[in-house]
């Protein structure tokens, strides 16, 4: 029998860097148990490339007495498949819930790997609308990078949260909160009651520069809500697998405030958008990775939001 590995070994690797890199990524997939029954795979601090399968967000799962919940499914079908394989190494319990924290591709395209498990796909009640507008668009763009067939399907959520909800994995209750426009228009966060572990998804970026696609003012308003939960630890959407929420939120808040004040000031002074993207909140540059890749876009978004104030 010819295995995939032996086929790869027989090929000149310089012709197939993508395939080889992918095989390496597969071996590298690992989750860490950051609290009892909570397993997290740290995403890489990169943009999606043909070599990383869009495995750039922190994803993982929570094991209860009767069932498993996927906290984030991954950035591509393959990312989700690897997560599913990892779950099966840990437990044979049924996968009953797959959380889709918001519409961005690095958080939803792993969901296709769990369709056969027939879980409830849990999301903010605004996610269907956002997916209608962008899902297919994201899928095509992702395939442009990962190759045809590699993105995975656009999975529709089946359990919608309008404000709050609870799911029970068997003696393990997860509290879900749907947020007002913040990082995106459909952010859903989760708290594991048993370990007081918070899953703020992309309402919390650590080290990797935040990306803004909802409302800057809204995001600054939602952060204190999460802070008030006084969670023991948090699993940010990007960054280390487990962090102290307050310290990480302080840094994020500084970035967002700096963006808010800087953009408002630019608008008040009649600085136009093309100049503002080069000047606003530049003092934040040394604090974040990928700053130059995202910050200008954030200023553009902030400008659009604030210029009509």
């Amino acid at each position, binding site marked *: 029998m010819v295995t995939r590995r032996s086929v790869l070994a027989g090929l000149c690797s310089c012709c197939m860097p993508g395939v080889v890199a992918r095989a390496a990524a597969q071996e590298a997939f690992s989750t860490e148990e950051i609290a009892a029954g909570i397993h997290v795979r740290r995403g890489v601090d990169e943009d999606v490339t*043909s070599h990383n399968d869009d495995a750039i967000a922190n994803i993982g799962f929570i094991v209860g007495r009767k069932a498993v919940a996927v906290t984030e499914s991954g950035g591509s079908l393959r990312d989700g498949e690897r997560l599913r394989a990892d779950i099966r190494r840990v437990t044979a319990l049924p996968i009953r819930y797959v959380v889709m924290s918001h519409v961005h591709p*690095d958080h939803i395209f792993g969901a296709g790997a769990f369709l056969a498990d027939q879980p409830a796909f849990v999301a903010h009640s605004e996610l269907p609308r956002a997916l209608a507008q962008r899902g297919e668009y994201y899928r095509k763009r992702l395939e442009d990078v990962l190759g045809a067939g590699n993105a995975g399907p656009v999975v529709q959520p089946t359990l919608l949260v309008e404000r709050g909800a609870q799911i029970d994995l068997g003696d393990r209750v997860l509290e879900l909160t749907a947020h007002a426009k913040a990082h995106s228009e459909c952010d859903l966060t989760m708290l594991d009651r048993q370990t007081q572990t918070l899953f703020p998804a992309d309402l919390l970026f650590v080290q990797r520069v935040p*990306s803004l696609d909802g409302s800057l003012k809204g995001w600054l308003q939602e952060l204190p809500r999460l802070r008030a939960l006084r969670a023991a630890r948090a699993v940010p959407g990007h960054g280390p697998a487990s962090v102290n929420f307050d310290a990480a939120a302080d840094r994020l808040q500084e970035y967002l405030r700096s963006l808010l004040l800087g953009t408002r000031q630019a608008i008040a002074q009649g600085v*136009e*958008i093309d100049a503002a993207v080069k000047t606003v909140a530049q003092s934040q540059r040394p604090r974040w990775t990928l700053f130059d*890749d995202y910050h200008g*876009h954030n200023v553009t978004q902030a400008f659009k939001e604030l210029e*009509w104030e």
Partner: protein
Amino acid sequence: MGMNRPSVRLAATIAIGGLTWLGCQAVAQADDEEAARQARWAQVQRAVFADRKVMDGASMLQLEAPPRALDPALVPLTITLTGTKPVKGVYVVIDNNPAPLAGHFIFGPAADPRTLKLRVRVDQYTDVHAVAEGADGQLYAVAKFVKASGGCSAPAGAADAEHLGQMKLHLSEGFTAGKPLQAQLMIRHPNFNGMQMDQLTRYYTPAHFIRTIDVSYAGGAVLHVDADISLSTDPVISFGFVPRARGQLKVAVRDSKQQSFERSFDVPAG
């Protein structure tokens, strides 16, 4: 990143609706592309200007555009007239957009045409041309290459009927009668271009965009804009004008559904 790797990379924004793509093919085929860009411009030039001669405009005007757009649905352009010859209007052409002529700006007697700014959508890697038309009818072009894609089909938010046609005006500081002022005009309009698909219904959101903008000051024409589908959502245009005395700047906008919006602004601002 290795040279021969398919280093396709979503810079910045796959997570954000607007997308910037850096494709390796763009580098590999630079020579071919240069030729293709020239051919495209020749084609577009014929379509827009028929057989009128278009001369090099380096001594007449400058075009500023970001080499790589941060948001392809909002690419800021600045056109500065640097020559001494009187200019009656400026054409903005985005060669590879589905409708390349983004706008034709015609200056009235009350205009100060030196600086013009606008925000456009860019659908794919393209040359952007700014073409000045002298008072004598001669055409002068300059170009900038812009790396951006997806700006035309990028999903837009739902139309905000409540704010449709709302306007704001920012004026540069310091009013002195007879001295030029720079005005930034903001108009709330979805400017749907007919290329954004609603995946739920599988229908394209019908085109609904601004066709013309007329700006006048104390009855004298400042600017007439013939626009097309390439202006960004909530268009923002900056232009100069010369107020002879205190008065009102009047703006009249008409869109593709024949809706009209009018607003007058005190100069200087009250």
